[in-house]
């Protein structure tokens, strides 16, 4: 036991004294999460819009107030004539212009019909669609409220509801993806490099010719990275709840439990890599090409699996991150329980067992 503790202490010395690896281990997850959560996102926030209110009555004021008070839009300017609309777009500051017809309220009250035009800058079509949808939703809200007050018998209500992600938040897809990626990176790549380093520097030679059991050497190599992975999980979850505003719907215990399983899976993969490589560079290359690439491309994080050619769809089944991301999405966002993800958990468990068996078989007790 004392051997183990000393060994683990030694590993932490290695990690803590290497500033660069520290940055990768602790800084990278935070940076990635924030970049993917905030910067790279389709979501709409504080978009500048222009208003041309030809009516200036109670109804239009009401709608404008609603739009303005939503966190999605900021009114950049109010326009007076139709000609100003084009000019406003050309400044590049606004993405959407809203035009109310004359006598808006009168029309609404007497003919039950009023017109409102939404003009969007469709150079980015996805964003334009999202923006117009948001505005129509806000207008629809107002309309249904009016109808309630008027107590009219037949009102047509269009309801748009976004399941699970009502605000179409980017964080909902990025958090599980970042977790799947970071944990694999730290657990598999860093562990394999740490073990291969001992081989490369020749210290493995001394460790083998010592009373310390080889499997104990491996365990002590793995534990520090396990601990660091857990710290990263905590950081990611805290950031996603408090900074990205993404609540954990399901059981925290289940989420953490399956995350630990995934970490074990990644660690045994790292172990496997360390048994087939002899240099740190080779270990890093295999980890990056063999792990990072499939995780980003095939896990369903960046591209939907259903759209892939059949060959890639089949291949994606061998990527542990795919199953882990399904689990995290399920537990964290949909709030489902273990009965709905036991299959994925079982697959991860089997993968771990296979990786471990191969690496134990391949581990050399000699040079």
């Amino acid at each position, binding site marked *: 036991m*004392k*051997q183990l503790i*000393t*060994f683990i202490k*030694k590993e932490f*010395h*290695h990690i803590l*004294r*290497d500033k660069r690896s520290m940055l990768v281990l602790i800084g990278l997850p935070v940076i990635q999460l924030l970049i993917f959560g905030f910067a790279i996102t389709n979501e709409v926030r504080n978009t500048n819009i222009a208003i041309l209110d030809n009516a200036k009555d109670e109804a239009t004021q009401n709608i404008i107030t609603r739009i303005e008070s939503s966190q999605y839009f900021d009114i950049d300017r109010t326009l007076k004539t139709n000609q100003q609309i084009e000019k406003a777009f050309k400044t590049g500051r606004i993405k959407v212009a809203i035009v109310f017809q004359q006598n808006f309220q009168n029309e609404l009250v007497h003919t039950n019909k009023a017109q409102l035009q939404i003009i969007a800058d469709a150079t980015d079509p996805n964003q334009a669609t999202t923006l117009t949808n948001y505005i129509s939703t806000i207008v629809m809200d107002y309309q249904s409220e009016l109808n309630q007050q008027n107590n009219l018998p037949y009102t047509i209500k269009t309801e748009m509801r976004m399941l699970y992600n009502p605000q179409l938040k980017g964080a909902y897809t990025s958090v599980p993806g970042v977790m799947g990626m970071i944990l694999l990176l730290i657990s598999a790549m860093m562990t394999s490099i740490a073990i291969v380093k001992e081989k490369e*520097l*020749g*210290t493995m*030679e*001394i*460790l*083998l*010719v*010592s*009373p*310390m059991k080889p499997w104990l050497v491996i365990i002590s190599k793995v534990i520090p990275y396990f601990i660091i992975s857990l710290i990263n999980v905590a950081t990611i979850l805290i950031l996603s709840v408090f900074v990205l505003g993404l609540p954990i719907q399901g059981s925290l215990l289940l989420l953490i439990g399956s995350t630990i399983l995934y970490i074990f899976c990644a660690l045994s993969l790292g172990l496997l890599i360390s048994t087939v490589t002899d240099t740190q560079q080779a270990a890093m290359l295999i980890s990056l090409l063999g792990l990072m690439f499939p995780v980003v491309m095939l896990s369903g994080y960046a591209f939907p699996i259903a759209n892939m050619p059949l060959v890639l769809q089949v291949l994606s089944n061998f990527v542990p991150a795919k199953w882990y991301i399904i689990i995290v999405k399920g537990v964290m966002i949909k709030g489902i329980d273990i009965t709905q993800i036991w299959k994925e958990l079982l697959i991860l468990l089997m993968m771990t067992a296979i990786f471990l068996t191969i690496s134990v078989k391949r581990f050399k*007790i*000699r*040079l």
Partner: protein
Amino acid sequence: MKAVELENIVKTYPTKKTTVTAVNDVSFSVEEGELFGLIGPDGAGKTSIFRILTTLLLADKGEAKVLGYNVVKDYKAIRDIVGYMPGRFSLYQDLTVEENLEFFATIFNTTIQENYNLVADIYKQLEPFKTRRAGKLSGGMKQKLALSCALIHKPKILFLDEPTTGVDPVSRREFWEMLKRLKAQGITILVSTPYMDEAKLCDRIALMQDGKIMTIDTPGNIVRQFGRNLFSVHSENMFTLLNDLRAFPQTESCFAFGENHHLTLTEESMAELEEYLLVRGHKNAAINKIEPGIEDCFMQLMKSPSQPFPNEMAF
């Protein structure tokens, strides 16, 4: 019981084209408490023998025992009792001197305090630098630290693979003095070195070449077996001197040894040699009779059975 026993050990390495025989049918034994040296140039097979004895490599053929334990079957027992210092500096460069020693003490289930007396002589020199990282030590200091780490668990037998390669002459001498003190404490030491001058510091040595042992004996006996008079020759033009000496009819062998050429003759007629050299234009040639060293013996053994002597062709 012998400390180390090897019987007909063969070790080959497969390469792309052929297989290289690193150790070719080697047998020898080392007594307990002995300081035994494997002497030979790079590629002689010294490291392979060390790795077979420390259970790191499996021999293709033959049997080896360390303190009665078989290196294949009882590898675990051997790993408990031997100390091993590989040729490459194998400590953690980013740990301090003290942390390295502490780490290896714990790995071997002991503490620095417990066996401090064993490493005291060596470690005292390192103590002023104990908070310095191992990577920042000088070559000699690194070797001393590595030796301390190999010794800290009080091994019954110590394997040192080229411990003085790349170390300055002063540190080398100190290092060998340490080995003598360790031997006095009853530790069996197997050491390998490419430096012939270190050979005479061992109790017994094995001279190795191309995976084979050429001879095993005490350094004194090996020198005695040289059996010829050896002359050191020096003149102003050393390069032509070597060729001229080799062309001299009575020359048995002649090798360049640093500042002098070492010469053995089949027939000792010094007057004839002096005259020969004078004729060849070597004015201040100095010829002195000297005691042969291990290296002279090594050169003699190396060339003896396989190649014909140069002077045979001259006859």
